[in-house]
Protein backbone atom coordinates (compact mmCIF):
# COMPACT_ATOMS: atom_id res chain seq x y z
CA UNK A 1 0.00 0.00 0.00
CA UNK A 2 1.23 3.45 -0.89
CA UNK A 3 2.35 5.52 2.08
CA UNK A 4 2.56 9.31 2.34
CA UNK A 5 4.38 11.73 4.60
CA UNK A 6 1.79 14.51 4.29
CA UNK A 7 -1.25 12.93 2.70
CA UNK A 8 -3.37 16.06 3.11
CA UNK A 9 -1.00 17.86 0.73
CA UNK A 10 0.25 15.06 -1.49
CA UNK A 11 -3.29 13.97 -2.32
CA UNK A 12 -5.14 17.30 -2.11
CA UNK A 13 -7.75 18.17 -4.73
CA UNK A 14 -6.75 20.37 -7.62
CA UNK A 15 -9.16 23.02 -6.43
CA UNK A 16 -7.61 23.20 -2.96
CA UNK A 17 -4.13 23.20 -4.47
CA UNK A 18 -4.98 26.11 -6.78
CA UNK A 19 -6.32 28.09 -3.87
CA UNK A 20 -3.22 27.37 -1.78
CA UNK A 21 -0.91 28.34 -4.66
CA UNK A 22 -2.85 31.55 -5.41
CA UNK A 23 -2.65 32.69 -1.80
CA UNK A 24 1.02 31.85 -1.44
CA UNK A 25 1.95 33.41 -4.79
CA UNK A 26 0.37 36.75 -3.93
CA UNK A 27 2.20 36.81 -0.61
CA UNK A 28 5.49 35.74 -2.15
CA UNK A 29 5.42 38.37 -4.92
CA UNK A 30 4.85 41.00 -2.24
CA UNK A 31 7.74 39.56 -0.19
CA UNK A 32 10.09 39.72 -3.16
CA UNK A 33 8.94 43.23 -4.13
CA UNK A 34 9.61 44.46 -0.62
CA UNK A 35 12.91 42.68 -0.04
CA UNK A 36 14.70 42.02 -3.35
CA UNK A 37 15.44 45.29 -5.17
CA UNK A 38 17.02 43.41 -8.08
CA UNK A 39 13.75 41.64 -8.91
CA UNK A 40 11.65 44.67 -8.06
CA UNK A 41 13.51 46.56 -10.78
CA UNK A 42 12.75 43.77 -13.23
CA UNK A 43 9.05 44.02 -12.34
CA UNK A 44 9.06 47.79 -12.65
CA UNK A 45 10.69 47.52 -16.04
CA UNK A 46 7.85 45.20 -17.08
CA UNK A 47 5.34 47.74 -15.71
CA UNK A 48 4.21 45.46 -12.92
CA UNK A 49 3.35 45.95 -9.25
CA UNK A 50 2.41 43.18 -6.80
CA UNK A 51 -1.25 44.09 -7.34
CA UNK A 52 -1.05 42.81 -10.91
CA UNK A 53 -0.49 39.26 -9.65
CA UNK A 54 -3.80 38.09 -8.28
CA UNK A 55 -3.55 34.37 -8.95
CA UNK A 56 -1.37 31.87 -10.70
CA UNK A 57 -3.13 32.79 -13.93
CA UNK A 58 -1.08 36.00 -13.77
CA UNK A 59 2.19 34.14 -13.22
CA UNK A 60 3.13 34.38 -16.91
CA UNK A 61 3.38 38.18 -16.57
CA UNK A 62 6.33 37.96 -14.18
CA UNK A 63 9.88 38.33 -15.51
CA UNK A 64 12.19 35.33 -15.62
CA UNK A 65 15.31 34.76 -13.61
CA UNK A 66 18.21 32.91 -15.15
CA UNK A 67 21.55 31.55 -14.07
CA UNK A 68 23.08 34.76 -15.46
CA UNK A 69 21.00 36.80 -13.00
CA UNK A 70 22.20 34.61 -10.16
CA UNK A 71 25.81 35.12 -11.16
CA UNK A 72 25.30 38.85 -11.42
CA UNK A 73 23.74 38.90 -7.96
CA UNK A 74 26.45 36.84 -6.29
CA UNK A 75 26.52 36.64 -3.33
CA UNK A 76 23.83 38.78 -1.65
CA UNK A 77 21.88 40.35 -4.53
CA UNK A 78 18.87 38.06 -4.34
CA UNK A 79 18.73 37.73 -0.59
CA UNK A 80 15.14 38.00 0.62
CA UNK A 81 15.67 37.93 4.38
CA UNK A 82 18.05 39.76 6.73
CA UNK A 83 21.26 37.82 7.24
CA UNK A 84 20.59 37.38 10.96
CA UNK A 85 17.52 35.33 10.01
CA UNK A 86 19.58 33.07 7.72
CA UNK A 87 20.94 29.87 9.19
CA UNK A 88 22.81 28.16 6.38
CA UNK A 89 24.09 28.38 2.85
CA UNK A 90 24.57 25.76 0.17
CA UNK A 91 26.37 26.19 -3.09
CA UNK A 92 26.49 24.68 -6.56
CA UNK A 93 29.59 22.90 -7.78
CA UNK A 94 30.41 25.79 -10.08
CA UNK A 95 31.46 23.50 -12.94
CA UNK A 96 29.73 25.70 -15.52
CA UNK A 97 30.85 29.06 -14.21
CA UNK A 98 30.75 31.03 -11.01
CA UNK A 99 29.26 29.35 -8.00
CA UNK A 100 25.69 30.06 -6.96
CA UNK A 101 25.21 30.56 -3.23
CA UNK A 102 21.71 29.94 -1.84
CA UNK A 103 20.58 31.02 1.62
CA UNK A 104 18.15 29.34 4.01
CA UNK A 105 16.20 30.53 7.03
CA UNK A 106 15.05 28.08 9.68
CA UNK A 107 11.66 27.89 7.94
CA UNK A 108 13.31 27.32 4.55
CA UNK A 109 15.26 24.39 5.96
CA UNK A 110 12.14 23.04 7.57
CA UNK A 111 10.06 23.02 4.40
CA UNK A 112 12.96 21.56 2.45
CA UNK A 113 13.16 18.63 4.87
CA UNK A 114 9.40 18.10 4.40
CA UNK A 115 10.08 17.73 0.69
CA UNK A 116 12.82 15.12 1.11
CA UNK A 117 10.78 13.36 3.82
CA UNK A 118 7.97 12.93 1.26
CA UNK A 119 10.48 11.38 -1.15
CA UNK A 120 11.80 9.02 1.53
CA UNK A 121 8.35 7.87 2.63
CA UNK A 122 7.37 7.32 -1.02
CA UNK A 123 10.44 5.07 -1.25
CA UNK A 124 9.25 3.08 1.78
CA UNK A 125 10.89 4.83 4.74
CA UNK A 126 9.29 4.51 8.19
CA UNK A 127 10.48 5.35 11.71
CA UNK A 128 12.00 1.85 11.82
CA UNK A 129 14.11 2.34 8.68
CA UNK A 130 17.88 2.72 8.59
CA UNK A 131 18.71 5.29 5.91
CA UNK A 132 22.27 5.61 4.68
CA UNK A 133 23.03 8.99 3.12
CA UNK A 134 25.97 8.57 0.77
CA UNK A 135 25.58 11.91 -0.96
CA UNK A 136 28.42 14.29 -0.19
CA UNK A 137 27.89 16.38 2.94
CA UNK A 138 29.02 19.97 2.79
CA UNK A 139 28.21 22.78 0.39
CA UNK A 140 26.45 20.29 -1.88
CA UNK A 141 22.73 20.01 -1.11
CA UNK A 142 22.52 16.22 -1.52
CA UNK A 143 23.86 15.16 1.87
CA UNK A 144 22.11 17.77 4.00
CA UNK A 145 18.80 17.50 2.12
CA UNK A 146 18.32 13.77 2.52
CA UNK A 147 19.87 13.81 6.00
CA UNK A 148 17.29 16.30 7.29
CA UNK A 149 14.42 14.52 5.53
CA UNK A 150 15.46 11.24 7.08
CA UNK A 151 15.47 12.83 10.55
CA UNK A 152 12.05 14.29 9.89
CA UNK A 153 10.65 10.86 9.14
CA UNK A 154 12.38 9.60 12.29
CA UNK A 155 14.66 7.12 10.56
CA UNK A 156 17.99 6.04 11.97
CA UNK A 157 20.24 8.12 9.73
CA UNK A 158 23.73 6.98 8.74
CA UNK A 159 25.55 10.15 7.57
CA UNK A 160 28.15 8.19 5.61
CA UNK A 161 28.74 10.96 3.05
CA UNK A 162 30.35 9.95 -0.24
CA UNK A 163 33.39 7.76 -0.84
CA UNK A 164 35.07 4.95 1.08
CA UNK A 165 33.04 2.32 -0.72
CA UNK A 166 34.04 -0.69 1.35
CA UNK A 167 33.03 1.10 4.55
CA UNK A 168 29.70 2.05 2.93
CA UNK A 169 29.04 -1.61 2.19
CA UNK A 170 30.08 -2.63 5.68
CA UNK A 171 27.60 -0.18 7.27
CA UNK A 172 24.81 -1.20 4.90
CA UNK A 173 25.29 -4.84 5.90
CA UNK A 174 26.12 -4.44 9.61
CA UNK A 175 23.40 -1.87 10.36
CA UNK A 176 20.85 -3.35 7.98
CA UNK A 177 20.29 -0.17 5.97
CA UNK A 178 17.15 -0.48 3.88
CA UNK A 179 17.43 2.80 1.95
CA UNK A 180 20.50 4.32 0.33
CA UNK A 181 20.64 7.90 -0.99
CA UNK A 182 23.42 8.90 -3.42
CA UNK A 183 24.13 9.89 -7.01
CA UNK A 184 23.16 7.26 -9.59
CA UNK A 185 26.74 6.94 -10.78
CA UNK A 186 27.88 6.22 -7.23
CA UNK A 187 25.04 3.71 -6.85
CA UNK A 188 26.26 1.92 -9.97
CA UNK A 189 29.78 1.94 -8.58
CA UNK A 190 28.61 0.58 -5.22
CA UNK A 191 26.73 -2.18 -7.05
CA UNK A 192 29.81 -3.13 -9.04
CA UNK A 193 31.90 -3.29 -5.89
CA UNK A 194 29.30 -5.47 -4.18
CA UNK A 195 29.39 -7.81 -7.17
CA UNK A 196 33.18 -7.93 -7.05
CA UNK A 197 32.99 -8.85 -3.36
CA UNK A 198 30.79 -11.77 -4.34
CA UNK A 199 27.64 -10.31 -2.70
CA UNK A 200 24.31 -11.26 -4.24
CA UNK A 201 21.15 -9.14 -3.78
CA UNK A 202 20.19 -11.55 -0.97
CA UNK A 203 23.28 -10.53 1.00
CA UNK A 204 22.35 -6.84 0.76
CA UNK A 205 19.61 -5.59 3.12
CA UNK A 206 18.82 -2.54 0.93
CA UNK A 207 15.28 -2.37 -0.44
CA UNK A 208 15.27 1.04 -2.08
CA UNK A 209 17.54 3.81 -3.26
CA UNK A 210 16.94 7.50 -3.88
CA UNK A 211 19.21 8.68 -6.64
CA UNK A 212 19.53 12.13 -8.18
CA UNK A 213 21.70 15.19 -8.78
CA UNK A 214 22.81 13.99 -12.20
CA UNK A 215 21.32 12.68 -15.40
CA UNK A 216 20.75 8.92 -15.59
CA UNK A 217 18.91 6.67 -17.97
CA UNK A 218 16.22 4.00 -17.53
CA UNK A 219 18.82 1.41 -18.53
CA UNK A 220 21.07 2.53 -15.71
CA UNK A 221 18.11 2.30 -13.34
CA UNK A 222 17.44 -1.31 -14.33
CA UNK A 223 21.14 -2.19 -13.93
CA UNK A 224 21.28 -0.70 -10.43
CA UNK A 225 18.00 -2.34 -9.40
CA UNK A 226 19.21 -5.75 -10.55
CA UNK A 227 22.70 -5.61 -9.03
CA UNK A 228 21.55 -4.52 -5.59
CA UNK A 229 18.09 -6.07 -5.62
CA UNK A 230 16.38 -2.75 -4.84
CA UNK A 231 13.81 -0.36 -6.26
CA UNK A 232 15.53 2.80 -7.51
CA UNK A 233 13.67 6.12 -7.09
CA UNK A 234 14.53 9.28 -8.95
CA UNK A 235 14.62 12.64 -7.19
CA UNK A 236 14.92 16.12 -8.64
CA UNK A 237 16.05 19.45 -7.30
CA UNK A 238 18.31 22.43 -7.67
CA UNK A 239 20.36 24.31 -5.13
CA UNK A 240 18.74 27.50 -6.44
CA UNK A 241 15.33 26.24 -5.26
CA UNK A 242 16.49 24.38 -2.10
CA UNK A 243 18.07 21.12 -3.26
CA UNK A 244 16.83 17.57 -3.88
CA UNK A 245 13.13 17.12 -3.23
CA UNK A 246 11.62 19.75 -5.51
CA UNK A 247 10.14 16.68 -7.18
CA UNK A 248 10.28 12.98 -6.26
CA UNK A 249 9.27 9.67 -7.65
CA UNK A 250 6.58 7.35 -6.27
CA UNK A 251 6.49 3.57 -6.62
CA UNK A 252 4.88 3.88 -10.06
CA UNK A 253 8.23 5.19 -11.40
CA UNK A 254 6.38 7.17 -14.07
CA UNK A 255 7.79 10.65 -13.61
CA UNK A 256 8.41 12.72 -10.49
CA UNK A 257 5.69 14.43 -8.44
CA UNK A 258 6.44 18.11 -8.01
CA UNK A 259 5.93 19.45 -4.48
CA UNK A 260 3.46 21.98 -5.82
CA UNK A 261 2.53 23.42 -2.45
CA UNK A 262 6.06 24.90 -2.43
CA UNK A 263 6.99 25.17 -6.10
CA UNK A 264 4.92 26.05 -9.18
CA UNK A 265 6.36 24.44 -12.31
CA UNK A 266 5.86 25.78 -15.83
CA UNK A 267 7.10 24.60 -19.20
CA UNK A 268 8.14 27.27 -21.66
CA UNK A 269 9.45 27.38 -25.18
CA UNK A 270 13.11 28.36 -24.58
CA UNK A 271 13.16 30.48 -27.73
CA UNK A 272 9.85 32.34 -27.66
CA UNK A 273 9.55 32.16 -23.82
CA UNK A 274 5.88 31.31 -24.26
CA UNK A 275 4.21 29.04 -21.70
CA UNK A 276 3.40 25.64 -23.18
CA UNK A 277 0.47 23.36 -22.29
CA UNK A 278 0.83 20.16 -20.20
CA UNK A 279 2.32 17.10 -21.90
CA UNK A 280 4.47 19.29 -24.14
CA UNK A 281 8.23 19.28 -23.98
CA UNK A 282 10.07 22.48 -23.19
CA UNK A 283 12.20 24.23 -20.60
CA UNK A 284 11.23 23.77 -16.99
CA UNK A 285 10.67 26.95 -14.95
CA UNK A 286 10.00 27.10 -11.21
CA UNK A 287 8.53 29.65 -8.86
CA UNK A 288 9.34 29.08 -5.20
CA UNK A 289 6.26 29.91 -3.14
CA UNK A 290 7.61 29.70 0.39
CA UNK A 291 11.30 30.38 0.18
CA UNK A 292 12.12 33.31 2.40
CA UNK A 293 15.89 33.77 2.15
CA UNK A 294 16.30 32.93 -1.52
CA UNK A 295 12.90 33.54 -3.10
CA UNK A 296 13.26 32.87 -6.83
CA UNK A 297 10.32 33.65 -9.10
CA UNK A 298 10.11 32.04 -12.54
CA UNK A 299 13.61 30.60 -12.42
CA UNK A 300 14.67 29.02 -15.70
CA UNK A 301 16.23 25.64 -14.90
CA UNK A 302 17.44 24.96 -18.45
CA UNK A 303 16.20 21.38 -17.99
CA UNK A 304 14.14 20.05 -20.85
CA UNK A 305 11.10 17.94 -19.92
CA UNK A 306 7.30 17.89 -19.86
CA UNK A 307 4.63 18.03 -17.14
CA UNK A 308 1.53 15.89 -16.86
CA UNK A 309 -1.67 16.07 -14.81
CA UNK A 310 -2.64 12.54 -15.81
CA UNK A 311 -3.85 10.60 -12.79
CA UNK A 312 -1.14 8.61 -11.00
CA UNK A 313 -2.19 5.31 -9.45
CA UNK A 314 -0.13 6.06 -6.32
CA UNK A 315 -2.95 8.41 -5.28
CA UNK A 316 -0.90 11.60 -5.29
CA UNK A 317 -2.48 14.48 -7.15
CA UNK A 318 0.74 16.48 -7.46
CA UNK A 319 1.69 17.15 -11.08
CA UNK A 320 4.42 14.91 -12.50
CA UNK A 321 7.49 16.00 -14.42
CA UNK A 322 9.22 13.64 -16.83
CA UNK A 323 12.87 12.85 -16.25
CA UNK A 324 14.70 15.79 -17.83
CA UNK A 325 16.03 14.78 -21.21
CA UNK A 326 18.97 17.10 -20.90
CA UNK A 327 19.83 20.68 -20.25
CA UNK A 328 19.27 23.37 -22.83
CA UNK A 329 22.95 24.16 -22.52
CA UNK A 330 23.85 20.49 -23.23
CA UNK A 331 21.66 20.38 -26.32
CA UNK A 332 23.48 20.26 -29.61
CA UNK A 333 21.93 21.18 -32.90
CA UNK A 334 23.51 18.95 -35.52
CA UNK A 335 22.30 19.18 -39.11
CA UNK A 336 19.26 20.95 -37.71
CA UNK A 337 18.39 18.11 -35.34
CA UNK A 338 18.35 18.48 -31.54
CA UNK A 339 20.76 16.00 -30.00
CA UNK A 340 21.23 15.41 -26.28
CA UNK A 341 24.30 13.60 -24.95
CA UNK A 342 21.93 11.58 -22.75
CA UNK A 343 20.36 10.02 -25.86
CA UNK A 344 23.77 8.86 -27.04
CA UNK A 345 24.44 7.49 -23.58
CA UNK A 346 21.23 5.48 -23.70
CA UNK A 347 22.24 3.82 -26.97
CA UNK A 348 25.67 2.96 -25.58
CA UNK A 349 24.26 1.40 -22.41
CA UNK A 350 21.60 -0.49 -24.38
CA UNK A 351 24.36 -2.04 -26.45
CA UNK A 352 26.55 -3.14 -23.58
CA UNK A 353 29.09 -0.34 -23.63
CA UNK A 354 29.90 1.81 -20.60
CA UNK A 355 28.93 5.49 -20.42
CA UNK A 356 32.49 6.59 -21.22
CA UNK A 357 32.21 8.52 -24.42
CA UNK A 358 32.95 11.79 -26.10
CA UNK A 359 30.97 13.61 -28.74
CA UNK A 360 32.95 15.52 -31.33
CA UNK A 361 31.03 17.82 -33.60
CA UNK A 362 32.70 19.29 -36.65
CA UNK A 363 31.86 20.81 -39.99
CA UNK A 364 33.08 19.57 -43.36
CA UNK A 365 31.91 21.26 -46.57
CA UNK A 366 29.21 23.14 -44.66
CA UNK A 367 27.76 19.94 -43.27
CA UNK A 368 27.91 19.07 -39.58
CA UNK A 369 29.72 15.89 -38.64
CA UNK A 370 29.03 13.86 -35.50
CA UNK A 371 31.74 11.57 -34.23
CA UNK A 372 31.13 9.55 -31.07
CA UNK A 373 34.27 8.19 -29.44
CA UNK A 374 33.52 5.21 -27.22
CA UNK A 375 35.93 3.56 -24.84
CA UNK A 376 36.43 -0.17 -25.39
CA UNK A 377 35.65 -2.28 -22.31
CA UNK A 378 36.83 -5.78 -21.32
CA UNK A 379 33.22 -6.99 -21.72
CA UNK A 380 32.88 -5.73 -25.28
CA UNK A 381 36.30 -6.83 -26.51
CA UNK A 382 36.74 -10.11 -28.33
CA UNK A 383 39.51 -11.61 -30.44
CA UNK A 384 37.01 -11.76 -33.32
CA UNK A 385 37.43 -8.67 -35.47
CA UNK A 386 34.21 -9.26 -37.40
CA UNK A 387 32.25 -9.40 -34.15
CA UNK A 388 33.70 -6.09 -32.92
CA UNK A 389 32.78 -4.49 -36.24
CA UNK A 390 29.28 -5.94 -36.08
CA UNK A 391 28.79 -4.46 -32.60
CA UNK A 392 30.09 -1.15 -33.86
CA UNK A 393 27.57 -1.29 -36.72
CA UNK A 394 24.76 -1.96 -34.22
CA UNK A 395 25.81 1.17 -32.31
CA UNK A 396 25.68 3.24 -35.50
CA UNK A 397 22.22 1.85 -36.32
CA UNK A 398 21.02 2.48 -32.73
CA UNK A 399 22.18 6.10 -32.84
CA UNK A 400 20.57 6.61 -36.23
CA UNK A 401 17.22 5.45 -34.91
CA UNK A 402 17.52 7.36 -31.60
CA UNK A 403 18.83 10.65 -33.02
CA UNK A 404 17.51 10.58 -36.55
CA UNK A 405 20.94 11.40 -37.93
CA UNK A 406 23.98 9.32 -38.69
CA UNK A 407 26.94 9.31 -36.34
CA UNK A 408 30.39 7.89 -36.86
CA UNK A 409 31.42 5.62 -34.00
CA UNK A 410 35.10 5.26 -33.17
CA UNK A 411 36.34 2.79 -30.59
CA UNK A 412 39.13 4.13 -28.42
CA UNK A 413 41.37 2.78 -25.68
CA UNK A 414 40.01 2.53 -22.12
CA UNK A 415 40.49 5.65 -19.99
CA UNK A 416 41.67 7.58 -23.04
CA UNK A 417 38.80 10.08 -22.83
CA UNK A 418 39.90 13.13 -20.93
CA UNK A 419 38.30 13.56 -17.52
CA UNK A 420 38.09 16.69 -15.46
CA UNK A 421 37.21 16.51 -11.77
CA UNK A 422 36.30 12.87 -12.30
CA UNK A 423 33.72 13.76 -14.91
CA UNK A 424 34.34 13.12 -18.58
CA UNK A 425 34.38 16.08 -20.94
CA UNK A 426 31.40 14.99 -23.03
CA UNK A 427 31.21 17.38 -25.91
CA UNK A 428 33.82 18.99 -28.11
CA UNK A 429 32.29 21.31 -30.68
CA UNK A 430 34.85 22.22 -33.33
CA UNK A 431 32.39 24.06 -35.54
CA UNK A 432 33.31 27.64 -36.15
CA UNK A 433 29.98 29.38 -36.31
Amino acid at each position, binding site marked *: MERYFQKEIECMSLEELRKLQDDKLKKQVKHVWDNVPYYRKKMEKAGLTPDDIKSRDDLHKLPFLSKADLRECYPYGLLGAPLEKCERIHSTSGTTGKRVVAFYTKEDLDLWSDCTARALVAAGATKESVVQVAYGYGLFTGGAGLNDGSHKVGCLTVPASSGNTDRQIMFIRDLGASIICCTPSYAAFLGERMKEMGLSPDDIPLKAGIFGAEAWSEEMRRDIEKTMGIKAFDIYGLTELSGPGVAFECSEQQGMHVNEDHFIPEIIDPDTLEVLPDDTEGELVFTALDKEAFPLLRYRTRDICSLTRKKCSCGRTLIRMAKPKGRTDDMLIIRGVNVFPSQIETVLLNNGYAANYQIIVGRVNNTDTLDVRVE*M*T*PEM*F*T*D*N*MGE*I*EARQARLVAGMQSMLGIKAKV*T*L*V*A*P*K*SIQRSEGKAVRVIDNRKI
Partner: protein
Amino acid sequence: MSIKQISVFMENKPGTLEEMTEVLAKNNIDMRALSVAEAEDFGIARLIVDDVYETATVLKDAGFVNKMSDVLAVEIPDTPGGLNKVLKTLSAAQVNLEYMYAFLGGKAADKAFIIMKVAHIDRAESTLKIGGFNLVDQEQISEL
Protein backbone atom coordinates in the same frame (compact mmCIF):
# COMPACT_ATOMS: atom_id res chain seq x y z
CA MET B 1 46.78 -29.44 -26.94
CA SER B 2 46.12 -25.77 -27.53
CA ILE B 3 48.09 -22.81 -26.29
CA LYS B 4 47.01 -19.42 -24.97
CA GLN B 5 47.19 -16.36 -27.13
CA ILE B 6 46.66 -12.82 -25.86
CA SER B 7 44.67 -10.42 -28.03
CA VAL B 8 44.98 -6.73 -27.26
CA PHE B 9 42.67 -3.90 -28.37
CA MET B 10 44.64 -1.25 -30.24
CA GLU B 11 43.24 2.21 -30.74
CA ASN B 12 44.20 3.43 -34.21
CA LYS B 13 46.65 6.22 -33.47
CA PRO B 14 50.42 6.62 -33.70
CA GLY B 15 52.35 5.06 -30.83
CA THR B 16 49.77 2.59 -29.53
CA LEU B 17 51.78 -0.50 -30.42
CA GLU B 18 54.92 1.08 -29.05
CA GLU B 19 53.16 1.80 -25.76
CA MET B 20 52.23 -1.85 -25.51
CA THR B 21 55.71 -3.17 -26.33
CA GLU B 22 57.09 -0.69 -23.78
CA VAL B 23 54.95 -2.35 -21.11
CA LEU B 24 56.16 -5.78 -22.20
CA ALA B 25 59.79 -4.66 -22.25
CA LYS B 26 59.60 -3.12 -18.79
CA ASN B 27 58.14 -6.32 -17.41
CA ASN B 28 60.67 -8.51 -19.11
CA ILE B 29 58.09 -10.36 -21.20
CA ASP B 30 59.56 -12.39 -24.05
CA MET B 31 57.43 -12.56 -27.19
CA ARG B 32 57.44 -15.65 -29.36
CA ALA B 33 55.20 -14.29 -32.07
CA LEU B 34 53.20 -11.18 -32.85
CA SER B 35 50.60 -10.36 -35.44
CA VAL B 36 48.62 -7.15 -35.88
CA ALA B 37 45.29 -7.11 -37.67
CA GLU B 38 43.57 -3.87 -38.50
CA ALA B 39 40.05 -2.69 -39.21
CA GLU B 40 39.12 0.81 -40.32
CA ASP B 41 39.68 2.53 -36.99
CA PHE B 42 41.07 -0.01 -34.56
CA GLY B 43 43.33 -3.04 -34.52
CA ILE B 44 43.96 -6.22 -32.60
CA ALA B 45 47.49 -7.25 -31.64
CA ARG B 46 47.85 -10.99 -31.05
CA LEU B 47 50.73 -12.24 -28.97
CA ILE B 48 52.32 -15.52 -28.07
CA VAL B 49 54.52 -14.99 -25.01
CA ASP B 50 56.60 -16.87 -22.50
CA ASP B 51 54.35 -16.01 -19.53
CA VAL B 52 50.68 -15.61 -20.48
CA TYR B 53 49.21 -14.75 -17.10
CA GLU B 54 51.90 -12.24 -16.24
CA THR B 55 51.41 -10.58 -19.63
CA ALA B 56 47.62 -10.38 -19.26
CA THR B 57 48.04 -8.81 -15.82
CA VAL B 58 50.65 -6.20 -16.70
CA LEU B 59 48.73 -5.19 -19.84
CA LYS B 60 45.49 -4.84 -17.88
CA ASP B 61 47.25 -2.75 -15.24
CA ALA B 62 48.62 -0.50 -17.97
CA GLY B 63 45.08 0.04 -19.28
CA PHE B 64 45.12 -2.32 -22.27
CA VAL B 65 41.93 -4.29 -22.78
CA ASN B 66 42.97 -7.85 -23.59
CA LYS B 67 41.56 -11.32 -23.84
CA MET B 68 43.04 -14.80 -23.78
CA SER B 69 42.00 -17.34 -26.37
CA ASP B 70 42.98 -20.85 -27.40
CA VAL B 71 44.98 -21.34 -30.58
CA LEU B 72 46.94 -24.25 -32.04
CA ALA B 73 50.71 -24.10 -32.49
CA VAL B 74 51.92 -26.58 -35.09
CA GLU B 75 55.57 -27.42 -35.58
CA ILE B 76 56.69 -27.73 -39.21
CA PRO B 77 60.11 -28.24 -40.82
CA ASP B 78 61.56 -24.99 -42.14
CA THR B 79 61.58 -26.29 -45.74
CA PRO B 80 59.56 -25.48 -48.88
CA GLY B 81 56.11 -27.03 -48.71
CA GLY B 82 56.05 -27.34 -44.93
CA LEU B 83 52.97 -25.18 -44.39
CA ASN B 84 51.26 -26.57 -47.47
CA LYS B 85 51.22 -30.07 -45.96
CA VAL B 86 49.48 -28.84 -42.82
CA LEU B 87 46.86 -26.92 -44.75
CA LYS B 88 46.19 -29.90 -47.04
CA THR B 89 45.42 -32.04 -44.03
CA LEU B 90 43.06 -29.45 -42.61
CA SER B 91 41.22 -28.74 -45.84
CA ALA B 92 40.71 -32.45 -46.40
CA ALA B 93 38.97 -32.53 -43.02
CA GLN B 94 36.94 -29.37 -43.87
CA VAL B 95 38.43 -27.40 -40.98
CA ASN B 96 37.97 -23.66 -41.40
CA LEU B 97 40.87 -21.35 -40.51
CA GLU B 98 39.97 -17.97 -39.02
CA TYR B 99 43.49 -16.61 -39.19
CA MET B 100 47.07 -17.73 -38.84
CA TYR B 101 50.58 -16.41 -38.52
CA ALA B 102 53.98 -18.04 -38.36
CA PHE B 103 57.38 -17.70 -36.74
CA LEU B 104 60.76 -19.36 -37.09
CA GLY B 105 61.90 -21.83 -34.51
CA GLY B 106 63.87 -19.90 -31.92
CA LYS B 107 66.48 -22.27 -30.51
CA ALA B 108 65.33 -25.02 -32.90
CA ALA B 109 66.89 -23.44 -36.00
CA ASP B 110 65.56 -25.90 -38.56
CA LYS B 111 61.94 -25.54 -37.48
CA ALA B 112 59.07 -23.14 -37.96
CA PHE B 113 55.80 -22.83 -36.05
CA ILE B 114 52.39 -21.77 -37.21
CA ILE B 115 49.79 -20.31 -34.90
CA MET B 116 46.25 -21.06 -36.05
CA LYS B 117 42.84 -19.92 -34.90
CA VAL B 118 40.24 -22.41 -36.08
CA ALA B 119 36.50 -22.70 -35.65
CA HIS B 120 36.55 -26.29 -34.36
CA ILE B 121 39.65 -26.61 -32.29
CA ASP B 122 39.12 -30.25 -31.20
CA ARG B 123 38.51 -31.48 -34.71
CA ALA B 124 41.53 -29.60 -36.02
CA GLU B 125 43.68 -31.00 -33.25
CA SER B 126 42.75 -34.64 -33.84
CA THR B 127 43.07 -34.25 -37.61
CA LEU B 128 46.58 -32.86 -37.25
CA LYS B 129 47.61 -35.55 -34.77
CA ILE B 130 46.37 -38.31 -37.07
CA GLY B 131 48.26 -36.58 -39.90
CA GLY B 132 51.44 -36.96 -37.84
CA PHE B 133 52.02 -33.30 -37.03
CA ASN B 134 53.55 -32.16 -33.79
CA LEU B 135 51.41 -29.75 -31.75
CA VAL B 136 53.37 -27.66 -29.31
CA ASP B 137 52.06 -27.07 -25.78
CA GLN B 138 52.33 -24.03 -23.52
CA GLU B 139 55.43 -25.27 -21.74
CA GLN B 140 57.28 -25.96 -24.95
CA ILE B 141 56.36 -22.52 -26.29
CA SER B 142 57.76 -20.91 -23.16
CA GLU B 143 61.02 -22.77 -23.57
CA LEU B 144 61.57 -22.00 -27.24
